[in-house]
């Protein structure tokens, strides 16, 4: 009997039918990985408004080349704006940096002109400015206005501060000798400094024209200056008249020209003339006190060292003196002065100010004093002089309120007046009447002996050789010397005489101008109202 035993085989371990699903899985995985690797990034951009943004339609452009599309626009949870979800092309992936900027390009009408007119037909789009930072980012906050300067543009970014807001606004031109070299990027009010702040950008290569001696001034509008020489009208370009602008340059006489770093700070002056009046930025405040009359000493009066201007008078500190309480009827009146190291041809910097303070401290020990001097006898204007007086005893700097004080001495006409007054007082105090009466009595008496006469003469001799009389002679000589010194001031070559002469010439010029105007009005009273018509042009004449 044969056993019909079924043969059992283990069968094939892998069925061919599984190849198809496995292949499908592999292809699916490859498609997922390929898509993940080749698909462009998705980013979000926050804007304040969705004006011009449309899901599926609004494009993202870089240099007018489309690099993406807005997929969705949704309100932010706190309703403070909208968030646009944007799908970018793979090529834009490397451009997404921390400082990459986005803004909506749409038609805009402003004082500076009309822009984005093309979007009226094509629709608004989002422009991208690639960043240069190393860190990457996928969520951005869009700009409300197009940036004025591209990221990474070569040039110099500076900050200007002004005491008052003029008509300068964002986008206004920055000019050098009338040529546009940059623009105002932003304006704001700095609450800490209580000044208006302007952020400006100077394009390369013109940023090389800016150095520590550069001054900036406002050239907005039209400047009209009426004086004895006539009326002067100054204007910038039409753009700066209407919109405002900033100009810069180097005032004559500014010595140190050190390079400046990015974001350096400068003062914005109201006009070019202001930069000439106050060309220096750094200085030190001091207080000098005088017992003399301060009539003629006005804010802005010069502070001079041997005729060289080293600073200016800021103001008389009478309010501060009153607040401290007057101690007597001869209290010295404090005057605040401002000394600028830049005027001495040393760098206009804070380091120079520190060095100047140290120098003044040592100089005062060696006899340096401040004096009140008459600058112009015709107008009575006064100035403050600083000089060395070797006869003065060594002194130290003092303090008033929070200011350092420099010791003062009396000189010039005021000192002469004081000394003359003291001399007359002493003359009055001499016993001259008694001496003369004694001598008369001695002469009248015939019986008086020679001894009595000698005694009388001896008495007179005693009086004349007394300490008071000797001192009187010395003071008389000193007073006459001082008087000669003052009278020398009126000689033809003296500075005082030149000032007086210049003032008289200026007065003469003013009178001549007035005469010319009077003659014109006398000849033609309506010349101010009716302009001459059909008047031929003046003919250029060659040299004779």
């Amino acid at each position, binding site marked *: 009997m044969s056993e019909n035993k079924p043969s059992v085989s283990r069968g094939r371990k892998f069925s061919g039918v599984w190849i198809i699903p496995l292949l499908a899985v592999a292809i699916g995985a490859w498609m997922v990985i390929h898509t993940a690797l080749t698909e462009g990034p998705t980013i979000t951009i926050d804007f304040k408004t969705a004006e011009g943004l449309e899901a599926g339609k609004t494009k993202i452009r870089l240099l007018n080349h489309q690099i993406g599309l807005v997929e969705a626009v949704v309100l932010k949870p706190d309703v403070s704006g909208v968030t646009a979800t944007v799908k970018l092309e793979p090529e834009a992936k490397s451009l997404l940096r921390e400082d990459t900027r986005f803004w909506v390009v749409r038609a805009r009408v402003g004082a500076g002109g009309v822009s984005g007119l093309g979007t009226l037909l094509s629709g608004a789009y989002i422009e991208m400015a690639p960043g240069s930072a190393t860190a990457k980012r996928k969520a951005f906050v869009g700009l409300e206005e197009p940036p004025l300067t591209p990221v990474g543009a070569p040039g110099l970014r500076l900050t200007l501060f002004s005491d008052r807001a003029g008509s300068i606004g964002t986008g206004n031109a920055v000019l050098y000798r*009338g*040529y546009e070299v940059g623009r105002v990027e932003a304006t704001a009010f700095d609450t800490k400094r209580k000044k208006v702040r302007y952020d400006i950008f100077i394009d390369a*290569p013109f940023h090389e*024209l800016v150095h520590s001696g550069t001054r900036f001034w406002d050239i907005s509008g039209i400047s009209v200056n009426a004086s004895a020489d006539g009326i002067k009208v100054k204007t910038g370009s039409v753009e700066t008249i209407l919109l405002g602008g900033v100009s810069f340059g180097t005032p004559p006489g500014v010595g140190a020209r050190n390079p400046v770093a990015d974001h350096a700070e400068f003062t914005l002056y109201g006009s070019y003339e202001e930069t000439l009046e106050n060309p220096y930025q750094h200085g030190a405040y001091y207080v000098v006190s005088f017992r003399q009359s301060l009539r003629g000493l006005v804010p802005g009066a010069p502070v001079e060292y041997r005729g060289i201007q080293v600073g200016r008078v800021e103001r008389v500190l009478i309010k501060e003196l009153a607040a401290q309480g007057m101690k007597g009827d001869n209290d010295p009146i404090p005057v605040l002065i401002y000394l600028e190291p830049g005027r001495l041809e040393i760098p206009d910097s804070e380091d120079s100010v520190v060095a100047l303070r140290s120098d003044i401290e040592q100089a005062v020990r060696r006899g340096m004093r401040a004096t009140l001097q008459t600058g112009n006898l015709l107008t009575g204007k006064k100035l403050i002089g600083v000089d060395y007086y070797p006869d003065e005893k060594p002194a130290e700097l003092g303090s008033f309120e929070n200011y350092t004080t420099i010791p003062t001495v009396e000189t010039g006409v005021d000192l002469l007046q004081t000394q003359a007054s003291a001399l007359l007082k002493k003359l009055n105090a001499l016993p001259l009447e008694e001496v003369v009466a004694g001598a008369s009595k001695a002469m009248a008496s015939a019986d008086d002996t020679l001894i009595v006469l000698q005694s009388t003469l001896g008495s007179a001799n005693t009086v004349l050789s007394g300490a008071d009389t000797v001192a009187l002679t010395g003071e008389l000589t000193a007073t006459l010397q001082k008087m000669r010194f003052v009278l020398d001031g009126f000689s033809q070559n003296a500075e005082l005489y030149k000032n007086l002469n210049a003032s008289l010439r200026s007065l003469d010029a003013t009178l001549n101008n007035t005469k010319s105007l009077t003659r014109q009005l006398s000849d033609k009273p309506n010349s101010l109202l009716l302009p001459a018509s059909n008047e*031929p*042009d003046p*003919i*250029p*004449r*060659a040299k004779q």
Partner: protein
Amino acid sequence: MMKLLVAILVVFTAGCGGKTPELTQYLLRTDTPGQITGQAPASTGIGDLTVASYIDSPGLVLESSNGEVRMARHHQWAEPLRESLRSFLAAEIATASGQAIGSHKHRASTWKRRIDIHIDQLHGNADGDATLVAYWVVIDTGKLKLLSETAFSDTEPLAGDGYEALVRAEKALLGRLAAAIAATLN
């Protein structure tokens, strides 16, 4: 009353009766052969050319002895100075330097150097001279570097009376300015 009205009428008609002088216009063109045709493309060109506001108008300008500036109403440039100066200076600089000078800004991308010019003063004066004050900068457009910054100030005596002589003198001055600019290119 009637007499007064007649008097006013006579005054006004008398005012309208004056003869208007004729308008004379002048063209600023170089007398030199100018740019040589067939030369290599210009590697240097005139970039921005600006003029001061007071000469940015058609009338020729004359400064009187008292410093007053008068703009002629009957003697004018035939075309805006900004435009004629550009081609005039380009031709004159090309002649002086012996190299082609571009005058059209739309070709600026091909330039290696750019000259920006500002004309600050251009007028006749009471001394019988024409005056020209100008500034210019030469810029390396590739490196964006300022190569030189120069100022020019000169006068030219008028050969005779009248505006024609003034125009000739101003042309001579502009020719000298072009030569000075050409010297800074070498």
